[in-house]
């Protein structure tokens, strides 16, 4: 059996309930959301540690703010990671499952590593707020664990792309390796492309922080301006570095992929260059350029995750694997259920984000009871339940 027919045989006979393109788009989009928070955690924990070791009130404030934000971002990262994990398994199941089994011990290990990382960063945040001394170890331990998780995730996603190697990794003479204790593949520029981006994205997050609180009368204006400038500087430096790493990475992928002709790669590159221009402009007045920079950064991350997907299509295409040929067992009902839930979700989430946005901008309690979305959000969720009850009754009768 060659690798191509093995992949076919491993695909789930249940098929997929809707056109694979939809899952692919959702995979890219939700992965982009997830990776932004991965970036914010790596960068945020680093900033809070770095600032902790510097002296001065500004650094002290910044350290506290980012230690707190990082614990929140870490829990958001986990929940946001669920969706791409799901969609990956729907259309790339042979790759994902085999690679996971081959490094099973690592994949289970990262769950515990993340639990420890969160606990450490939370202790760091608590002690920081009580102005305790000698607490850097907590933050550094959390940071190292997070990087370890990143290395594992990178290796498992990357080794998934080499099906012809799997048997070699698994079988040794007449024995098989049941332990799953080895990571089998690693590509430095591909990995660095995540890590370096973290500092650029965190820089932009600092600009957003400075912009968001600028009208609060209880906050120190010069401190905020300082954070904005530092963020803009960090963002521009690391965007340049990120481009260098990106070029290195592109030249390390198999040459037959011809990335320079691929529209997805070109689009991602163009977005990155645009972002760089805005960031250069932003150096003199960061607050003015915060929103365009943030929007372009988001687009660039989307471009990068799309490029990663395009690369996966090329890698898997070498074994005649195409997600578009996945067996279809159309299920309009369940697809509609998700569509309805998704739209409802956007409205409810939109309402909640409005509340927190308005609340954070004011130093005094705000009255938001007249927001129309408030009652609508609850009604929509109740309507969702009634819809399910209706379907249940229809099925039972």
């Amino acid at each position, binding site marked *: 059996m060659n690798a191509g027919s093995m992949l076919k045989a491993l695909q789930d006979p249940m098929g997929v309930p*809707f056109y694979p393109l939809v899952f692919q788009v959702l995979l890219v989009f939700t992965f982009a959301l997830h990776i932004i928070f991965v970036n914010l955690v790596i960068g945020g924990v680093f900033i809070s540690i770095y600032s902790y070791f510097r002296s001065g009130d500004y650094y002290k404030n910044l350290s506290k703010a980012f230690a707190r934000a990082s614990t929140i971002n870490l829990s958001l990262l986990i929940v946001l990671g*669920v969706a791409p994990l799901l969609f990956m398994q729907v259309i790339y199941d042979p790759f994902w*499952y085999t690679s996971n089994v081959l490094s099973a011990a690592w994949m289970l290990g990262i769950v515990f590593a993340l639990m420890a990382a969160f606990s450490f960063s939370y202790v760091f945040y608590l002690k920081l707020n009580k102005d305790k001394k000698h607490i850097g170890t907590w933050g550094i331990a959390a940071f190292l664990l997070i990087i370890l998780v990143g290395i594992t995730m990178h290796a498992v996603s990357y080794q998934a792309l080499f099906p012809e190697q799997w048997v070699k990794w698994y079988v040794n003479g007449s024995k098989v390796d049941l332990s799953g204790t080895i990571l089998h593949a690693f590509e430095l520029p591909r990995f660095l492309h995540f890590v370096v981006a973290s500092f650029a994205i965190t820089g932009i997050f600092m600009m957003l922080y400075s912009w968001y609180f600028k009208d609060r009368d209880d906050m120190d204006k010069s401190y905020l301006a300082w954070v904005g400038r530092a963020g803009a500087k960090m963002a521009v430096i690391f965007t340049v570095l990120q481009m260098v790493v990106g070029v290195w990475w592109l030249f390390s992928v198999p040459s037959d992929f011809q990335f320079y002709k691929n529209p997805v790669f070109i689009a991602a590159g163009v977005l990155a260059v645009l972002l760089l221009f805005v960031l250069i402009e932003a150096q003199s007045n960061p607050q003015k350029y915060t929103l365009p920079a943030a929007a372009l950064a988001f687009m660039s991350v989307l471009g990068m995750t799309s490029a990663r997907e395009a690369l996966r299509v090329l890698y898997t295409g070498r074994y005649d694997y195409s997600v578009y040929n996945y067996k279809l*067992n159309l299920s309009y009902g369940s697809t509609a259920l998700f569509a309805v839930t998704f739209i409802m979700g956007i409205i409810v989430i939109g309402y*909640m984000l409005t509340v927190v946005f308005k609340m954070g901008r004011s130093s005094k309690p705000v009255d938001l009871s007249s927001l129309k979305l408030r*009652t609508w959000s609850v009604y929509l969720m109740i309507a969702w339940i009634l819809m399910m009850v209706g379907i249940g009754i229809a099925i039972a009768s």
Partner: protein
Amino acid sequence: MYPVWQLPVAGSALVIAFIASFHILPSHLATSAFWFNVYVENKSYKENKPELLEFIKKYVLVILIFSFVFGSLSGVGIWYAITVSNPKGISAVIHNYVWGWASEWVFFIIEILAIYIYYYTLGKVDKKTHLTIGLIYAIGAWISMVIITGIIAFMLSPGQWLKTGGFFDGFFNPTYLPQLLMRTSHIFAIAGLYAIVVAGTLKNREVKSFIIKKASLWGMAGSVLAALFFKWYLWSLPNTAEELYKMNVLIPDIIPHVVAAAFIVLFVWFIVVWIRPQWARLIPGILAIFILFAGVFSAESIRERIRKPYVIDHYLYSNQIISNDMPSKNIKSNIGDIDREGILHYSYFVPEGLKTINNTNMLQAGEIIAQIECSACHTLESNGWLRPLPSMVEKAGLISVDTAQALIGFLNAFPFMPQFAGTVREKEALATYLVSLYPPGSKAAYAPELQRRSVSADHIKIVKLHR
């Protein structure tokens, strides 16, 4: 077939059980707590008791850290554990219910945003808005249970789905409603139980006693309702599952006894603190949560056991082999193909030298077959924790390859065992391997039958060396 991952001694299935059991504690808290919170917050505004908010702030922080870090991570952990120990199993459920899970994910996002916003906006937005955020959380968390219960119940009793393959036919299956009602009632009791622990640490005596009295009432009412729905749930089980439930081999008496004992102890605890709220200290409160854990763990393990030998009833065996045809989705059972080609050929991840069985590799081939077809539920080592094969072999008295082959041929005569899939030669290899596991030193191993075994003296040597 995917490659096999095995955790030495414990067995990979126990990893799932371990993580899943832990997940019970934070996930039930996440689903339940806000109904109590919203109730208390509402009371605080209506009766003008702002001091009650002190409790809310504390309770939410516990939920935030315990449920949204350790809870969501252990949830992902269950998923990873199933992925690496039963990839075809998780794949089948995901390919069927991907939109269900994707919908649940939308509610996860709603939940996590709601709880953070609820925590950080207390006292900073108007009361109505704050209550609404709490309510959004409570409904969202309950809905995530509405969805996951459908999928868990589907695996046990897919009902009409086996014929139609329809998403909703499987979702609204025969055990769904009783399970949902049971779990829904139970979460109110759980909310009460956790609230008693948190309230026990409060300084304000009035608030403390107010919360504990209310929480224990919730606890009593939720427990009684849950017990009633549990009866209905047992009654709704498919016949095969009910048969398994009554089998002592599969479910030792101790398990239902633990469920009953946990129920009684917790009920008494609710009555005690209702009468004497000041007795609700931290240590007994946490002990009560451990008792809850023992009870829920046992109840969940009953469900896992009565589903045997399937991951999805009458569709997929625990060892990842598709047991039945499913014309509605154009799926053929794997058994025919495997019987014809042999499992060693059917699975890609087998050493080249073992694909064709001969007298020299029979034992090793048998071991690989056992890894593929048996290790999901049996550890291969004699000191294994999960129904170790050597002790099964000893119990069944498999001292000759002939008897072992005969048993393998009739495996599915045991209602909780799947049928063997493979060629005649592979059956012989597995039988040879099983016989080799017969505990050395055991009396019977030196019985005259041993001489008649078709396994050669060389094989026995290899086995001894192997150990």
